[in-house]
């Protein structure tokens, strides 16, 4: 019967997939370590993670092509956990006894928090988004940008400077807009205290749902309350949508919009609507826009992405993670040798690479026994004439994490 045939086909499909269960491939019996990425390629932050991941993967490929780090190759296992804790934890448990699992990368805060105790138990360092909680913990987790609140602090510093430069007295009034989720609120844990400390008047924050159609409501309200600067915290393309709404409302002239780290990039807005983004400022922990295009590595990696040049900001940031890992691995291999190489060795090594650079993609590496930030520097960019142009050099972020009571 036809039905049976289809069922058989279905069973065969299932079996094929079952055989695919084992992703170990590519690297043979050489010396290698495993790098596990538990990321989200399909959810709300896919816009970042995908190119982020590509940058990382390309760098790892590059390192492997060059013969590895002192002969040790890196085997990346990069999984899509679809924003689900149980999937991520399950994946970790499957791979934790994997050959020399020395590093884990995570892109979702919730997953990071769930995994953290397990990774500590297994002594594997784990890289998480810039959540202040982990910096405060000073544990096995390192953040892959300055913590969000630090960057928010740096942005407020920039606002104060800009306010002064324009010849205004006193301190500016700052509005805050963020996603109505943990990520959107993160900036204020510490950011709020820092605003108090430097005397900036921070308006009541506005939160908008993920996937919101229009943002006019919150923008007009902040404007009505007298905000001169509005900090927008969400990931692209939602940030870009906020900016476009601000443009439609005619707000771009009298209010300065500042986008957080995952905000406006060329791909997610500026390339499509140059006139609408004109004048927006972006606080960025890594190079982007014209800088990224001009970066030598961007050209070098063209061969891995046959389609288009890697101008995405997060692509470069992903690469900087690869560079950092390469450096730490190098130190670790030198310290303990390949035989004894494990997560703990990498963890120790990570704390020794303070001050090294990531080929100019980010500021100097800031990992140390008292810091779990990959870097403490940010750079400010402005959208001018359809291009993202730097307006400052690297600026050091204030330590706002320590201001918050965790």
């Amino acid at each position, binding site marked *: 019967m036809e039905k049976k045939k289809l069922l058989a086909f279905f069973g065969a499909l299932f079996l094929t997939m079952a055989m695919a269960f084992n992703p170990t491939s590519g690297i043979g019996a050489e010396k290698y370590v495993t790098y596990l990425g538990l990321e989200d390629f399909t959810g*709300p932050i*896919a*816009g970042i993670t995908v190119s982020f991941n590509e940058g990382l993967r390309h760098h790892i490929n590059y390192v492997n092509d060059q013969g590895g780090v002192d002969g040790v190759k890196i085997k990346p296992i990069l999984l899509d956990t679809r924003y689900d804790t149980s999937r991520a934890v399950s994946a970790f448990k499957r791979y934790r006894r994997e050959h020399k699992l020395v590093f884990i990368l995570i892109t979702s805060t919730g997953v990071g928090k769930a995994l953290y105790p397990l990774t500590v138990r297994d002594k594997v360092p784990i890289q998480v988004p810039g959540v202040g909680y982990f910096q405060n913990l000073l544990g096995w987790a390192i953040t892959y940008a300055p913590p969000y609140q630090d960057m928010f602090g740096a942005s407020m510093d920039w606002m104060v400077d800009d306010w002064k430069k324009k010849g205004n007295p006193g301190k500016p009034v700052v509005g805050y807009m963020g996603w109505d989720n943990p990520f959107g609120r993160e900036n204020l844990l510490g950011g709020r205290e820092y605003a108090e400390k430097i005397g900036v008047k921070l308006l009541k924050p506005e939160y908008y749902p993920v996937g919101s159609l229009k943002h006019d409501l919150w923008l007009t*309200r902040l404007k009505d309350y007298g905000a001169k600067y509005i900090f927008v915290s969400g990931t692209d393309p939602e940030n870009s949508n906020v900016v476009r709404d601000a443009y439609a409302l005619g707000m771009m002239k009298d209010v300065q919009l500042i986008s957080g780290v995952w905000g406006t990039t060329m791909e*997610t807005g500026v390339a499509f609507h140059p006139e609408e983004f004109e004048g927006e400022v972006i606080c960025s922990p890594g190079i982007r826009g014209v800088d990224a295009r001009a970066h030598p590595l961007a050209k070098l990696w063209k061969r891995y992405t046959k389609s288009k040049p890697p101008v995405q900001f997060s692509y470069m940031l992903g690469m900087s993670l690869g560079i950092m890992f390469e450096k730490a691995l190098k130190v670790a291999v030198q310290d303990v040798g390949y035989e004894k190489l494990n997560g703990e060795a990498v963890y120790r090594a990570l704390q020794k690479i303070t001050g090294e650079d990531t080929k100019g993609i980010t500021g100097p590496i800031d990992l140390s026994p008292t810091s779990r930030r990959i870097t403490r520097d940010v750079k400010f960019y402005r959208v001018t004439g359809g291009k993202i142009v730097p307006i400052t050099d690297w600026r050091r972020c204030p330590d706002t994490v320590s201001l918050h009571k965790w």
Partner: protein
Amino acid sequence: MSTFLQFLILGLMEGGVYALVGVSIVLVYKATKTVSIAHGQLLAFGAFFFYLFFGYFGLPIIIALLLCFLAIGVMGFVIERLALRPMIGQPLFAAFLVTFAVFVVFDGVFLLILKGGILGVPKFLPRESLLVGGLRIPEGQAISFVLSMAVFGIIGLMFRYSKVGLGMRATAEDHQLAQSTGISVKKMFSVIWVVSSVVAAIAGISTAHVIDIYYSYPLLGIKGLIVALVGGLESLPGALLGGLILGILENISAGYLDPIVGGGVKEVAAYFMLLVILLVKPYGLFGLVRIERI
């Protein structure tokens, strides 16, 4: 007062889009008794096809629109033909799950197209706002709002007076009975899915005017479901009204309550409204009360 009016206008404009999604879901429900969550994908793909023909190939807007409707119509037809037709005679919730599976399948395809990025449709309606007596009226949205009302009117007339409309209404009541009177229920299902896909695509295109095409498009389908339920699953005017109410309520409640409870009201307002409406009027504002006989 002027803030209130401003919220009202914003809500109305957003509500127009919601209403269209709602209408497309109601259309399918009326005829096939299937509640579809896949319409979010139809909306997303409608926007994508429009981008493809208008933005990527640079065709004139009218031709691009027609091609887009054609493409989305084919897609709706294929979904009905391959996924939902085998579900005739199965429990309703299984059919809902099928639409959900369709949603997941197309979600993958959609993400494949996006590759984690966005697609920006070039400007086809003005993006600035008009200032009328201190109120901001987004021009492009106002135009698409008027157009969607027109679409709604056409559908309403078709249902009421045309022969196909009569057939659709008959099909909606009882499939077996409709067949025994010579209505091709299968054909009717296909027609309804095509029409409904086009309506969803129109919603998608008017969304693409406001925000670029990105991953969250399909989730507008859930808003559409809420609208359909609030209005009553069988009622077209209900969907229209439900959409407008939802849009207005979201904006007004977020406008006035956000500062009090500390944000995030807009998202939850829809669900609160749904709960309240279901408690007060169990089958929606205009839903049919079943004629029950024991």
